[in-house]
């Protein structure tokens, strides 16, 4: 298996990009990724592409990437794996290069969440993602999927809504430094706790916004990496975990088993453990989910996530900074792009170029969970080639 390097990354700002269609956003992110390559990269070097998009916008997804980015002569495949689409697309690109089949691949992701009315988006999407006879008619909107987990988590662990609020406050604080973040303002614990309720136990500030956006990374084989840069970021581990799809079949709702499975694969592939991670971008679609992620990823023991957030360990400056980009919470969450945008942030962190830099970061982890809570994808990046 060949080693795989990330040599370029780009993303659009995340937000309500009403003025941009999918056919605008995708080439913008891809163009920025291509332009970011230190020694330049000719588009004709790209031999294959993967495009992560949860819900196709304006039609045939693979064709839109090929057409809008001038990549009509290479294979392009759309990939969909719920909210884990982004990091799973990175995993597919990594496999393609590692296998020896291609030397240079493009991994892009995008979604136009705000292409439909804010009031109906999650409902429109629900019909596509839920069992039509058994759980769709109940009104199991996206936040409710996670709220069922977090309610039980709050019941069993010492964590409280205040701890959830600390996550939101931290990620908003981080997001202020990120010019591409959707919500660039500070909030207070009190604001979080008194905000209008969305889905109990999530108030407005516990929730990710609805976002449009695109992101892209370029992966190359170690054999050719010198053509492009002398400071690549290495894709050292990838993992993908699944779980029972229906909540009724998940024995323990205080954890996301897909994360545990994906992390086990990715850590094993990288030959490291959670203690080695210097910075992480984790899936904080709802504040309480970040707490559960700390435990599933091994950043702390079970039911001790509250201690990490209380002590500021996961803020930039702490022991294991999480979501220096602002996370889904402040940066935004266009599902197909989310995981790739996490890699965009970590690419910058590992090259010492981040807006909110974690000093001396050498190992980084990106994590998605979704689907509803039945899939997780993880990417481990490093400055270390081996």
């Amino acid at each position: 298996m060949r080693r795989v390097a990330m040599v370029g990354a780009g993303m659009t700002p995340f937000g309500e990009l009403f003025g941009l269609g999918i056919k605008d956003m995708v080439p913008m992110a891809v163009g920025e990724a291509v332009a970011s390559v230190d020694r330049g990269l000719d588009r004709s070097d790209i031999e294959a592409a993967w495009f992560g998009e949860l819900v196709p916008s304006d039609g045939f997804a693979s064709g839109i990437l090929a057409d809008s980015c001038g990549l009509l002569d290479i294979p392009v495949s759309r990939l969909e794996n719920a909210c884990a689409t982004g990091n799973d697309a990175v995993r597919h690109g990594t496999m393609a290069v590692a296998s020896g089949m291609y030397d240079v691949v493009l991994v892009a992701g995008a979604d136009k969440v705000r292409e439909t009315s804010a009031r109906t988006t999650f409902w429109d999407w629900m019909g596509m993602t839920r069992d039509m006879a058994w759980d769709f008619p109940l009104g199991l909107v996206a936040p409710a999927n996670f709220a069922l987990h977090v309610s039980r988590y709050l019941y069993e662990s010492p964590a409280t809504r205040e701890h959830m609020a600390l996550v939101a406050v931290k990620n908003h604080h981080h997001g202020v430094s990120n010019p591409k973040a959707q919500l660039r303002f500070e909030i207070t614990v009190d604001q979080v706790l008194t905000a209008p309720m969305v889905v109990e136990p999530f108030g407005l500030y516990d929730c990710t916004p609805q976002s449009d956006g695109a992101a892209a990374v370029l992966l190359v084989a170690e054999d050719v990496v010198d053509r492009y840069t002398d400071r690549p970021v290495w894709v050292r581990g990838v993992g993908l975990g699944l779980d029972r799809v229906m909540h009724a079949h998940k024995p323990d709702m205080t954890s996301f088993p897909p994360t545990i499975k994906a992390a086990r694969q990715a850590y094993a592939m990288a030959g490291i453990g959670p203690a080695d991670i210097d910075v992480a971008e984790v899936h904080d679609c709802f504040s309480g989910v970040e707490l559960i992620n700390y435990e599933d990823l091994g950043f702390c023991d079970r039911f001790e996530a509250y201690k990490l957030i209380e002590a500021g360990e996961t803020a930039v400056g702490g022991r294991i900074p999480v979501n220096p980009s602002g996370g889904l919470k402040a940066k935004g969450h266009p599902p197909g792009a989310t995981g790739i945008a996490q890699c965009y942030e970590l690419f910058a962190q590992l090259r010492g170029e981040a807006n909110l830099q974690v000093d001396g970061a050498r190992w980084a982890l990106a994590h998605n969970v979704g689907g509803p809570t039945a899939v997780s994808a993880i990417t481990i990046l490093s400055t270390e080639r081996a």
Partner: protein
Amino acid sequence: MIEAIGTYLPVWGSATGRVPGEDEDVVTMAVAAGRGALADPGTPVDTVVLISRELPLLEGGNGAPLLAGLDLELTVDVREEIGGAPAALEAVTNARPGTLVIAADVQGGAGAAAVRCGSAGPAVGSLGRVTRSLPVVTRDASGTVTEYADPRLLRERGVRRSLERLGPLGSVVAVAGLARRDAEQLTGAEGLPALPTTGASAALFALAEVAEGAAGGPVLAVEQATVALVELGPGPVAVHRDEAPPRSQPVTRPGAHADIAVSLAAYDRAFDAKLRLVAERCTTCGTLAYPARFRCLTCGSEAETAPVALPRDAVVYTVATIHVPVPGLSTPYTVILAELGDSAVRLLVRLTGAEAGSVGIGDRGRLVFRRVAVRTGVPDYGYAFTPEGPAEVAA
């Protein structure tokens, strides 16, 4: 002869009348009352008669969900009858043993009552019927109601003349279909029981009241200018009342119109298991699956499975209350992952009969038959969680 009676009132409303929850209709209320009437052993039921003027569907079928909710076989005869209190009274009078007569209403006080007719218990005999026309209220085939609104005309030219035509009433002990004051004025009777409904179910609520007293007597049912009179014989009857005290209905915000089309293929595959609450047991390792699966959750067996009825007592494992507007649904509403008895089966359901957000993890309750949604004109029935409380009180 009346073997047993079941009654049901929605929890919402006031002492002057109940209103159905958003997930209730004539079929769900009929199931609740019918289950009360069937709670004790008795003559096997081979016929169900459902009387209402508010049947959810005129075509497409109320019968199958009704039988499923009542745990009756698909082969049981179901007759749906459009009618009011006199029709319900006559349906009991004319019922053969093995008939379950259920009447349910939405307007004019929501509720349902069911009479199980068999070979034991007090007899019901007809004393007469008069059918006349004074249509101060009409409802056309599309359900549109037009009211003439002249109560004195109805009372004096409608009811009074029909009663005169009926002949001597005897000492009437209950009157269905009229406000108590009007009933007492028109019949000369005193101390008549107040009934919670005025439509078809009122006749069966009247029988329940009289049967509980065990003395029997003439029972009168009135609907506009049509009247029916029966004699209920003496003797005790088991009356199962599912009548929680009324509470005012919480204010909810209706969602914008939305409809994701039903898949009738998916509806069909789920129907029996979903409406009858039947899981499948793996014949290799014994694990229960709900809904049924091709491959066992535990051992991976793909062998035939055996149906098992699930318990209906439930405990909240986890809960989420949705406050944000959701198209097609009124908010707030609560979804619950409920653990069913000792079955190790969990089921995702909505909360019913209680204010959204009013239950917590560990709370006990039971699953009840409700209309979960209406999609593309198709009522989608299933189960909902209602918190433990004073429910079925046997008289």
